[in-house]
């Protein structure tokens, strides 16, 4: 009994709060981190089921695309909540006053090629005419370090809020480089939001300390990294599963 308590299982009951523990199925949920700028989506049974689908190697490409898009939409919705709004009151079609809010500030998406481009559809589903910049980062064969190969960003990016898109957040090498590029273009750190599906605990920790004002929105923080710096349990190569397999 005592040993059980010493090593808490990552598995826990998930489900609406009003259900008793017996009625909740058990599943592995996201690791908790204590950085204020890291936001993990609520671990609802629905989200866990979607993640289960895309982690499963038997899931075919069409389903992989469909279920990833659903998670990405949830991520985008959560990400957009960090954007500023101002009060606005309207008189409704039935003549009642409603004190609401108005979206404030221009936004743009920036995807890290190629996997990040898979998240553009989800972004467009929530923000119709959003501008999208691209950054291509590849590993330099000589130094083994990520290297910027290409970028194409909106000219006025310094005035915008940036949603940086990359589904898998392992070591954070590419993301760090991408943030450096954005900041060189004049985007202040606090106006960058990094959206990803699955993150590694070490990647998140390093990144959160390095860019304390930048917000990370993720669906799940996994157990860790393997020798090849792949996230475990992860879901394989996101780009391959989305585009080619």
């Amino acid at each position, binding site marked *: 009994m005592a040993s059980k308590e010493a090593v808490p299982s990552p*598995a826990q009951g*998930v*489900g*609406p*709060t*009003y259900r008793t523990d017996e009625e909740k*199925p*058990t*599943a*592995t949920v996201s690791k908790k981190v204590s950085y204020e700028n890291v936001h993990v989506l609520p671990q*609802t*049974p*629905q989200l*866990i*089921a979607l*993640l*289960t689908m895309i*982690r*499963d*190697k*038997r899931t075919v490409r069409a389903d992989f695309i*469909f279920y990833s898009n*659903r998670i990405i*939409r*949830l991520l985008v*919705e959560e990400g*957009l*909540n960090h*954007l*500023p*709004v101002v009060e*606005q009151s*309207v*008189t*409704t*079609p*039935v003549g*009642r006053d*409603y004190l*609401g*809010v*108005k*979206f404030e500030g221009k936004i743009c998406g920036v995807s890290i090629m190629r996997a990040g481009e898979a998240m553009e559809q989800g972004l467009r*589903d*929530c923000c*119709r005419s959003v501008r999208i910049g691209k950054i291509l980062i590849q590993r330099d064969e000589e130094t083994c370090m990520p290297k910027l190969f290409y970028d194409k960003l909106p000219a006025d990016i310094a005035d915008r809020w940036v949603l940086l898109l990359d589904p898998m957040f392992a070591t954070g090498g590419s993301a760090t480089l991408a943030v450096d590029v954005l900041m060189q273009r004049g985007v202040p750190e606090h106006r960058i939001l990094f959206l990803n599906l699955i993150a590694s605990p070490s990647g998140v920790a390093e990144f959160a300390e390095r860019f304390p004002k930048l917000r990370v929105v993720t669906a799940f923080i996994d157990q860790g990294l*393997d020798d090849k710096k*792949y996230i*475990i*349990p*992860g*879901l*394989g*190569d996101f780009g391959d*599963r989305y585009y080619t397999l």
Partner: protein
Amino acid sequence: MESTSPFYSVVPEVKYSPPWHDLSIIGIAGSSGSGKTSVAMEIVKSLNLPWVVILVMDSFYKTLTPEEHTKAHANNYDFDCPDSIDFDLLVSTLEDLKQGKKAHIPVYSFANHQRQPQTTTLYSPRVLILEGILALHDPRILKLLDVKIFVEADMDVCLGRRVLRDVRERGRDVEGIIKQWFTFVKPSYTKFVEPQRHISDIIIPRGIENITAIDMVVKHIQRKLQDKSESHTEALRKLGLLAAKVELPQNVHVMPATPQFVGMNTVLQDPATEHVDFVFYFDRLASILIEKALDMTSYVQTTVETPQGNKYLGLHPKGSVSAVAILRGGSCLETALKRSIPDCVTGRVLIQTDASSSEPELHYLKLPPQLEEHSMVMLLDPQMASGGAALMAVRVLIDHGVSEDKIVFVTCAAGETGIKRLIAVFPKINIIVGRIEPDGEPRWMEKRYFGC
């Protein structure tokens, strides 16, 4: 001396009875060829209401044995005596309908004198007309009838009509018809049909030609329906008063007012918003509601293997999820529904609220088969004001075998009294509400969405 048995106080149960509960049943009897069917049709026409159903007693003929079958073909079987009709089944069918339940009406084939394997489903009629030569025969049925009518015509006229009908429509020969008339129909008339005359409320001589009599019957039914409609509206109002005192329980999920969610609601409620923008933001907001609703279904744990061979303990949804749109508004939510479940099985129910009486009326119903086996059934309606239509829709699902705890009502905006009323009657359903709006808000969202 005996001790006094303990006394328990009774907590009044909060109930909702739809208007088809305690439906009006009219029985029309009379000789073959007297014009019962024409009178029934005329009543339906004059009432000019949805959900008036004629139930013909022919559907309840017993299945014949092979010997009886041969007899029937030789015009030697008595179809006019009470024994040929399955009164037990008829009584239980009428009782079910009277209680507002769904009933299965047998289909009888005259070609081979057998009940067919398929049945016709009858649900929620407001007025039912039971028509048959022996409609007023069984005392159990008499108790269920609101009006008892006997249609009378001269026996010569009856025979004449029967000959014409059977030759033209049923391809029978005159000799056989005459034989059957004198062997069975006429004796049966004297023995079983005619006595019904004395227990009827209204005798209509000359059938269809008797406009005055038919008009009287129609007026009587209309008056009864008016009373029922008033008590239904009154019951809905009382439920609201009763429910106003309770707090919103945990199974009512009001969406958190996040900046984006409030922002979308602002765009939607601003009359200056363009139609395309309205549709876009409505679909986006509705998608969030649907995703939230999907948390309410059951999940089972499962272990999957990732492409690198790692194991993950996750969840799979259990069973299938379906949706029922409360028309017309509910179909606004289908775009969002199809985003999350592209092949979602979807039923439809048209409930319209009468503008003058504010009483909801069920006009149309098409539910997917095996609905009761689904692990969750979402009821979609963009707006809920008093909750009258919602109450009716939930009642319909429950009457079709869906258990209460599997129903999730999804709405963009609802009045608090409406929600409380719904949850007071059906405490186990889940309700997903986008935004609480003032009570009695008129429905406007579907008008904006559809542009008319």
